[in-house]
């Protein structure tokens, strides 16, 4: 197991390098520079700015400068926000984005698996159709529609929850978590329904039933473990998607996370910010996929021998 983890982490290095290289080249190809503004920036100011951020050096030199700073953990200064480094901005935004993603994942997992299991227990009945239609709705409704709808209903109509904010007033984390998690909950519901249906048809489930076990025990103890396989392999990319895809939700609810900086970085041609965020998210995606693999092995003993691990 350890060997696999190390191996995977090792192969991540060239991947990250490629990500950096491609991003670095692509952002330089985009028209417009970080200091272009609607009002003409006087030539001497532009010259100073370019000098200050070493943008006059040849591109390969800039690239290797960036890499060597990166190896020392320095993401460089932000072009858009003087007096802040990209590292500082990441440090400020990451805990928030992580927290939001965890809550969203929680929403996705609880509602998704719940709905999937309920649906799978009585396939092709009302008990299946209702949660699955809701799931379909969840997949179809993008967060920029769902968010304002939830706000309208729960915040403005019923006044149960705040309209926006993060950690400012009680309960202001609930709506963002639901908005971000809903789409993933829907996917998870469909995946877990499929997985459960397959598992519930297995012989060992019939055995369990034949032994006279209570239905909840059959479903939750015996079947769930096998039925969650597809959900777990989906969870890795899903977490990465939650982390990097929270921009819309962050904007709707005024959440000071990373997504907003990432998008603004792109609009502002804030080269260091785009690079820093891209590297960070690439790293997240690699780690999440790895974690998903590990959990999958844990849940499915058959995979263990495939990976050369010990059997319990």
């Amino acid at each position, binding site marked *: 197991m350890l060997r696999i983890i190390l191996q995977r982490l090792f192969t991540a290095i060239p991947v990250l390098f490629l990500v950096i290289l491609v991003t670095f080249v692509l952002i330089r190809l985009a*028209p417009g520079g970080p200091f272009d*503004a609607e009002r*003409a920036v006087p030539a001497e100011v532009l010259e100073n700015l370019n000098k200050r951020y070493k943008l006059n050096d040849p591109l390969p030199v800039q690239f290797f400068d960036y890499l060597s700073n990166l190896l020392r953990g320095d993401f460089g200064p932000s072009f858009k926000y003087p007096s802040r480094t990209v590292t500082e901005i990441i440090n400020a935004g990451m805990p928030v984005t992580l927290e939001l993603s*965890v*809550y969203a994942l929680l929403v996705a997992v609880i509602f998704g698996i719940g709905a999937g299991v309920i649906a799978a227990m009585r396939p092709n009945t009302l008990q299946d159709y209702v949660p699955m239609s809701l799931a379909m709705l969840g997949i179809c409704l993008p967060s920029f529609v769902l968010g304002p709808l939830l706000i309208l209903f729960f915040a403005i109509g019923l006044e149960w929850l705040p309209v926006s904010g993060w950690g400012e007033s009680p309960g202001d984390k609930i709506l963002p978590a639901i908005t971000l998690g809903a789409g993933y909950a829907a996917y998870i519901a469909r995946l877990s329904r499929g997985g459960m249906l397959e598992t519930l048809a297995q012989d060992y489930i019939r055995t369990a039933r034949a032994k006279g076990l209570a239905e909840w025990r059959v479903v939750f103890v015996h079947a769930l473990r096998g039925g969650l396989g597809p959900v777990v392999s989906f969870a890795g990319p899903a977490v990465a998607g939650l982390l990097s895809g929270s921009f819309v939700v962050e904007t709707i609810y005024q959440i000071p996370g990373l997504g907003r900086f990432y998008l603004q970085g792109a609009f502002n041609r804030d080269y260091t910010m785009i690079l820093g965020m891209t590297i960070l998210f690439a790293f997240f995606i690699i780690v999440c996929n790895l974690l998903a693999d590990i959990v999958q092995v844990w849940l499915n003993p058959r995979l263990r021998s495939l990976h050369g691990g010990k059997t319990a």
Partner: protein
Amino acid sequence: MQPKVAKVMRSTVLSFLIAAVIGLTSGCGEKSLTNVEYGNQNQILYYGNGDEPKSLDPHLITGSPDNNVIMNLFEGLTSKDAATLEPLPGVAESWKISEDQRVYTFQLRKNARWSNGDPVTAKDFVFSWHRALSPAVPNEYAYIMYYLEGAEEFRKGKHKDFNKVGVKALSSHSLQITLKYPAHFFLQLLSHHSFYPVHEATLMKFGGIADPISKWILPGNFVGNGPFVLKRWELNKVIELVKSETYWDKDAVRLQAAHFYPIEDQQAEERAYRSGQIHLTNTPQMDIEKIQVYRDKDPDALRMVPTYTSYYYEFNVNKKPLDDARVRRAFALAIDRTLIVKNVTKGGETPAYNFVAPDPVGYEPQVYWHEDVDEARRLLAEAGYPEGRGFPVFTILYNTHDNHQKVAVTIQQMLKKNLNIDVQLENKEWKVYIAAKKNLEHDIARAGWLADYVDPSNFFDIFRSYAGNNNTGWKNADYDRLMQEITAESDKARRFELFEQANRLLADEMPVLPIYYYSDINLVNPVVQGWYDNVMHYHPLKYVYLQTPSTP
């Protein structure tokens, strides 16, 4: 995997889940006041500020979200009346102006203090302006200081001796300023953030005058001289200012604190207002659809104010057939502006028949033309395109935005209907759009201008032949000569005459097509007092306070 490990893992996951549920629902069920209710009781203003400020360093900022905050953290030699925009004494309590209007002598008030208790002295201003003009400091507004004698040369490295720049400390509280040209609006200009003083010892402590990541402006380090001080700055979340205890006029300040929220999304901002999270919105425009709702339901809160701005289309006069002034005039005459502001933008904008907006201080540009479709057709025929025949297809470029698109579509239809000309529309992302305009790649491009100070020169200067913001390719020696004359002219009436000549020239040549003057559309909770409508969107918090019917 060992059963033990599995057990540990299971309990880890479980405790993690429980912790997450607790975190998510923490504080639920507590009954609490909205921000606005709490603020009204405690004189705390909650302010929707549009965007996250780029910086709070007065010599580095460019945007209005930045300016909204720092106008309360610093004070220049003068300040402005929030209602009339007339210059008021700031750090300077009095001044004398020489007869040729080039030498200003300011007496600084003795009780002006920095937030750390140090006195604000004439030397502070000399240091600050030296810094603001230093070539090493990327101050995009340094050009506003070029009215000072020797400032432009110093900034551009033509001389390195700051003593040659027209600012001198005569004593600890007396400052002499020498201008290159007489500038009527100089007292007003002095309240611009480029002229704010910064605290020398603090800057030096945090890396000197030009450190790109200097921390002097962060809470804890910050030292300012305005009515408020910086208490908290959480990126993309909130900036909190509290009343300064060292400000010379602190008895006039009634607000105890102000919270600035960087709410970028107009709809999110409106919802925040509606649910009592903020007292006022401050994005320059509101969703068009929402305006009518507020007109009906909450007219006291809706503020629609004409501003000293211009929304217009730039012709690229290097491209045929737009190089022909008759064609440009034909376009201008063929567009129904009243219809655009009434049915398309719907935000209280004013139709514009001049590029320069009417000036609240006195200059009223004359109108030389109006919509006239017949005349437009005649001009087009004269230029060789009777009934639009043979007119090449060209493109209107605009930056991606709902309102710009709506306006462009309308103009496209009007040109087709009135002149039988086919126009294509092209929207580009902001930076690409700017780059295209600067390189004169466009045929016609949408543009907007917001004046920095109230003087027509702020608009007219754009069309100097080699000005950086002239994205039309239009070059006119007569116009340049007029601008030169205006700069040197000290007589107000004569200046206005010259402005009118320039205006006439623009009307004849039509390098840009005026469409409308923007208006500010904001929601301001009626409890907010001392918030005056003005053309510059200038809202200092010094005199603002909150008054509910129950708190007399």
